[in-house]
């Protein structure tokens, strides 16, 4: 029976429908940004579009609302006002229909959908988004969870790329614009901060913004991107050697970067590790990934009470119990 997933942690409202792991619909609508986002405005946008998007997803999946067996939504991490809209949509349908409701962690969903599509069992995951950059793998008994082996000391790599795009006047101000601007650039030295399996990006951002006045945007963008991605690859390589994992995935918004995928592919090949990155519709925020995890929770875990179905802006990935295989 189909499971519905609602994602609304940032500028994307996504509704996905899955049935026994098959993705029947993954509809999304995105608040258009030029530079930065104002949470309340985005929340309004999500609220306005929710009914239309729900209809679109049901139509695409060829299921009726009566066929839905369980519902999942993003509990966090994310922007409070935006998360609230998704939670209210999911909760309202669940309560009205008497369906079980599952709160899903956004990062877990990104990794799990990638793992699902790759048909991997136990990968090391590099999760790279705007707010977060972490290296994780499932560990720990009896509390099985995504253990964080390494992460950013300050800001997420996506946030760093977005901020640089704004400084350089690139529009829209996000990573894809930096990747385009970097084409054909040449390398100028940048600060490179890796500590064991952790890394930091603010020093790099500040330096890149500073040298913009004396160098072409192309060269600065190129050097910034190469430096940031090399840092991520080095930390990931160290985690691979430490954990001896034989599978590697990259997920999250920045996983859309073809250059980052190429570099991680080389890291994996060097150590005879299988590597997978999902199609971009699953790396940008989407509802299908929430539905995938909700279905696993529905099949393998206890049904949570409604009082547990809250939102949490800083919902840590390592606080989530992974109760499915």
């Amino acid at each position, binding site marked *: 029976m189909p499971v519905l997933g609602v994602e609304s942690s940032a500028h994307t409202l996504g509704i996905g429908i899955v049935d026994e792991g098959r993705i029947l619909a993954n509809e999304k609508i995105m608040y258009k940004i030029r530079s930065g986002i104002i949470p309340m405005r985005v929340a309004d946008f999500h609220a306005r579009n929710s009914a239309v998007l729900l209809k679109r997803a049901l139509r695409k999946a060829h299921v009726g609302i009566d066929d839905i067996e369980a519902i999942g939504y993003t509990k966090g991490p994310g922007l409070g006002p935006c998360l609230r809209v998704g939670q209210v949509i999911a909760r309202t349908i669940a309560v009205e229909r008497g369906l079980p409701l599952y709160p899903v962690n956004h990062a877990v969903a990104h990794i799990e959908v990638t793992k699902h599509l790759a048909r991997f069992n136990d990968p090391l995951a590099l999760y790279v988004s705007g707010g977060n950059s972490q290296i994780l793998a499932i560990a720990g008994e009896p509390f099985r969870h995504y253990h964080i*082996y390494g992460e950013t000391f300050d800001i997420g790599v996506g946030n760093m790329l977005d901020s640089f795009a704004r400084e350089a006047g690139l529009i829209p101000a996000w990573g894809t614009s930096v990747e385009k601007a970097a084409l054909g650039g040449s390398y100028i030295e940048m600060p*490179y901060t890796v500590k*064991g399996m952790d890394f930091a990006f603010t020093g790099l951002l500040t330096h890149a913004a500073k040298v913009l006045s004396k160098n072409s945007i192309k060269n600065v963008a190129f050097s910034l991107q190469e430096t940031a991605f090399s840092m991520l690859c080095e930390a990931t*390589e*160290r985690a*691979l050697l430490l954990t001896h994992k034989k599978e590697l995935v990259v997920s999250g918004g920045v996983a859309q970067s073809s250059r980052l995928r190429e570099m991680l592919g*080389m890291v994996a090949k060097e150590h005879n590790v299988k590597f997978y990155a999902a199609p971009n519709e699953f790396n940008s925020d989407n509802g299908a990934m929430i539905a995938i995890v909700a279905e696993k929770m529905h099949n393998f875990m206890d049904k949570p009470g409604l009082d547990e179905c809250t939102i949490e802006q800083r919902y*840590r990935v390592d606080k989530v119990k992974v109760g499915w295989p």
Partner: protein
Amino acid sequence: MAMKMISEGAEARIYAAMIFGINAILKYRQPKRYRIRALDEAIRVRRTRIEARTLITAQGLGVKVPQIVLVGRFGIFTTRINGRTLADILGDNGAKAPAKALADSGRYLAMLHSHNIVHGDFTPANIMVSSNDAKDTYIIDFGLSSFTASAEDKALDLLLMKRSLSHNDFQVFASSYKAHCDDSDAVLERLRDIERRGRYQTRTLAV
């Protein structure tokens, strides 16, 4: 010169080598194909240089470290320490950390920090206990070290140890550190700060 690879890390390969009649090891930073060449060489040269410089400075301070024999662009020959890492000793079932190694490493880290040297990867894997009778403690792998007065960077050296050791072992290590560091209050205060920050509240040691 015949060399036998004895270990391979993420960053460097370690070879056993005889050089100038000395029983040495070579730490060679191999190229990384995923990095563009200019960046790759810059990082390898920079780290090799910093490592050589901190090794020499540390030795001058009286911290036991491998002795430099020869330095190249991407590699350093040092004397070979016969012994085991503290991580290996801890890894043995039921093995306790030797108190001397904990106290020595606390004192050595304090000496380094007092002269604004931050190790950058101060874990039990980079502390060696020699197999001679004196059971001397050596600090190895200065590949991520830096010269800085930053309390934050110093606190991160302590944080790595805190995550790696049992509560009691860390207390032995930290009290030795406190007794020998000029500015331990500021560093320990910063360590508490770092642990209070959201990102680190629930994080424990890997594996």
